[in-house]
């Protein structure tokens, strides 16, 4: 590992510390919103908490986890030292300082604007500058990943880049493209407004730029989970990856199609016509392709493992899988949550039908299942898998790990299934309290209490997770070296350059973004939105 353990552990612990705090806040929020918490907390505290929860989960947990895992992959899969390790530490400290800079105004109540950047309501400039620093720190990571892969390719001409590294670099490039939108919005619109340099803002443009980032960012969070599906899960299950080529193609498709679809977050917005909305809905249809390919490829890989372990019949291989291993268990549970979350997403993206669920609890349920469910449970599994490598110690027992994963799954399902139901009945998002005296809302009460119970289970799981990692740090058992990454059934000896790098795909992303976002952005250059006066929270 050549001394990158400290680097990885530093990133991962920042990620999971933010995660634990955010879990406590999230559970508190659910209490406040439920009929049980009618007189608890004030709206000011509630929205401060939502802001902190969103920022910690969406920006800190994800970015730091992905960076830490990426460094681990670059060193273990490429079998060469990490290039530019001082830069990696610089990125870490930039991110951490940025996080602290953002948290201070949040705690002071000067940034209760939630974690989405929707001016004219703007928070303290420090909040935004801090988050820009987090993103800038992650850009260093992106460059290091790209450099690591490029150097390896130069030393190993003609050989296929290890799939796990290919996937990690795909995510790094995706992230560079993704952040272009929000960075433009923050630097040219939001931060000048928050600083008081300008008094008005073009809201149509700012929402469009944020939408550029809004969908692809979720894929940035998800790709480590997919990376684990393709490269860690088949090995943990004792099988092989069904197809290495499909893995590469999947990550390429994610890079291509997760970007030009952001306007499906603006389907209910008045600043875009139906034409561009339809085009992006169609493209959104295609972003399901890599996920559906993954479902099949990974099921087939698991089937190989199950059958090698003696499973028979059409479904016998499922029972034969080694479910006692955390990675396998997490993958199974992640797929179930991905199924439910994907179903919710299918409804969300359906053009006019988005009107039925937009900004309701349905949407909250959807992204908690996809991100909080599938992605985060795989973060847990990845952490459990690589922690022994990082610390040199082995888990004394796997039982608490399995319990933690099950709790997370059960909690997430109990929390989000009622949210779907409530969303369909019109329960809206982002409110501090509901008037349960209203006859329509009164009927929602019991379901809100059920979802709160789910939240409590999730909190228990989060605390158990941190406990499991602490226990491991003190575990007397020493880790035995064991391979992590899965072989393919047919390991490729060489692949076309198109599947071994990203040159072609970057060109295609540029073309797609020009077609998908050219007119939506250009229309504000031709006829700007009438300027809206900035409303500052300070």
């Amino acid at each position, binding site marked *: 590992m050549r001394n990158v353990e400290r680097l990885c552990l530093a990133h991962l612990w920042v990620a999971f510390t933010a995660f634990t705090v955010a879990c406590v806040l999230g559970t508190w929020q659910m209490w406040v919103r439920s009929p049980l918490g009618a007189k608890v907390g004030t709206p*000011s505290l509630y929205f401060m908490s939502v802001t902190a929860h969103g920022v910690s989960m969406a920006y800190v947990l994800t970015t730091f986890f992905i960076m830490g895992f990426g460094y681990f992959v670059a060193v273990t899969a490429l079998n060469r030292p990490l290039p530019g390790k001082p830069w990696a530490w610089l990125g870490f400290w930039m991110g951490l300082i940025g996080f602290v800079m953002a948290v201070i105004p949040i705690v002071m109540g000067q940034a209760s604007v939630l974690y989405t950047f929707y001016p004219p309501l703007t928070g303290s400039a420090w909040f935004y500058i801090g988050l820009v620093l987090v993103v800038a720190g992650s850009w260093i990571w992106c460059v290091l990943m790209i450099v690591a892969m490029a150097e390896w390719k130069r030393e190993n001409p003609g050989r296929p880049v290890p799939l796990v590294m290919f996937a990690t670099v795909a995510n790094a490039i995706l992230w560079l493209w993704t952040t272009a939108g929000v960075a433009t919005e923050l630097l040219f619109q939001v931060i000048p407004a928050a600083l008081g340099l300008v008094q008005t803002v073009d809201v149509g443009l700012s929402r469009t730029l944020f939408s550029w980032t809004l969908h692809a960012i979720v894929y940035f969070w998800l790709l480590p989970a997919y990376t684990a599906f393709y490269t860690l899960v088949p090995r943990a299950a004792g099988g092989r990856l069904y197809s290495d080529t499909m893995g590469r193609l999947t990550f390429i498709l994610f890079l291509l199609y997760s970007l030009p679809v952001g306007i499906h977050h603006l389907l209910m917005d008045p600043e875009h*016509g139906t034409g561009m909305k339809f085009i992006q809905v169609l493209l959104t249809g295609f972003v399901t392709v890599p996920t559906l390919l993954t479902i099949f490829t990974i099921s087939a890989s698991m089937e190989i493992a199950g059958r090698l372990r003696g499973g028979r019949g059409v479904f016998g291989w499922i029972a034969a899988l080694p479910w006692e291993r955390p990675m396998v268990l997490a993958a199974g549970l992640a797929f179930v949550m991905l199924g439910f979350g994907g179903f919710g997403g299918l409804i969300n993206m359906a053009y006019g039908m988005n009107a039925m669920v937009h900004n309701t609890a349905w949407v909250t349920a959807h992204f908690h299942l996809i991100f909080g469910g599938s992605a985060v449970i795989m973060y847990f599994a990845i952490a459990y898998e690589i922690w022994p490598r990082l610390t040199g110690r082995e888990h004394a027992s796997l039982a608490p790990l399995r319990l933690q994963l099950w709790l997370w799954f059960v909690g997430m399902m109990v929390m989000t299934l009622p949210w779907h139901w409530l969303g369909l009945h019109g329960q809206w998002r982002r409110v501090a309290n509901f008037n349960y005296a209203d006859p329509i809302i009164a009927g929602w009460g019991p379901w809100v209490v059920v979802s709160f119970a789910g939240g409590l289970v999730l909190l228990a799981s989060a605390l158990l997770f941190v406990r499991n990692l602490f226990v491991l740090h003190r575990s007397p058992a020493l880790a035995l070296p064991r391979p992590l990454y899965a072989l393919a059934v047919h390991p490729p000896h060489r692949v076309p350059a198109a599947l071994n790098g990203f040159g072609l795909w970057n060109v295609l992303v540029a073309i797609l973004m020009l077609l998908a976002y050219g007119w939506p952005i250009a229309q504000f250059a031709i006829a700007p939105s009438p300027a809206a006066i900035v409303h500052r929270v300070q």
Partner: protein
Amino acid sequence: MSDPRLSEPHVLDQPWRVWATVAVLTIVLAGALLGVVIIPVVQGRAAGLDAFTAICRALGIKPGSPAQPQPSDRTPPTPVSQVTWTPEVLQVLARANTERGRAKVLEVCVACHGEQGVSVAPEFPHLNGQSGPAIYKQLHDYQSGSRVHPLMTDIAKALDEPVIADVAAYYAGQPKRNPNPATLGELPANIVQLVELGDPNRNIPPCAACHRPGVGGPIEAPILHEQGQNYLALQLKAYASGERRNDVYARMRTIASQLTPAEIDGLSRYYAAGFR
């Protein structure tokens, strides 16, 4: 295999480039054909729109849905306030001269509102530390007749716009007395709740959502803490009865008309005590 030139993969690349580009472009073009041409034209025909209008609507060049006719407009009535928050107005406020403001205050305002903005009688509002935009709006509304007061109407009419901004900026810069607010325990819990939580059942937002400094609420919302109890109660009653109506979109009229006399009294005492 060991010779890198043999495994040079570029020969395999040509078809990838072609097919990937073709596939990507086909999908986008199909989307454009459906979304920008076929769907709007078909929808427009059903709604009695010509194809050109329907396509322009789909592209967002013309307003309206390609599937529906646009409703007709209405005639303009008299507004409740002439004040608009434009960058120009905010600029005037930002560039106001407090020295000139002070001179005007000593000349006109001092008799009732005091040199430091601490008023001499309970029916006049304190102006020290009030928000500049709030003072600006009220003076402007007196001037335009949106708000009526036997003394203020004539006084405001004699002021021109930069002077209004100067006076607003001067009083805004005067310090609050900042007394130690009494403990909340002296006030009924329902008043504190009205301020912090509002009343969801009656659709009343928390007072603090607008009247606490720096919450990002309406620009003209005045700061209420340390305001005179008598003045606050008077204004809430005037809003409730509709006697005062210069609140844009009747925000305060709607809220005040739902408050009970006890709540009006409690809220006035709450803010007079200096709570933020």
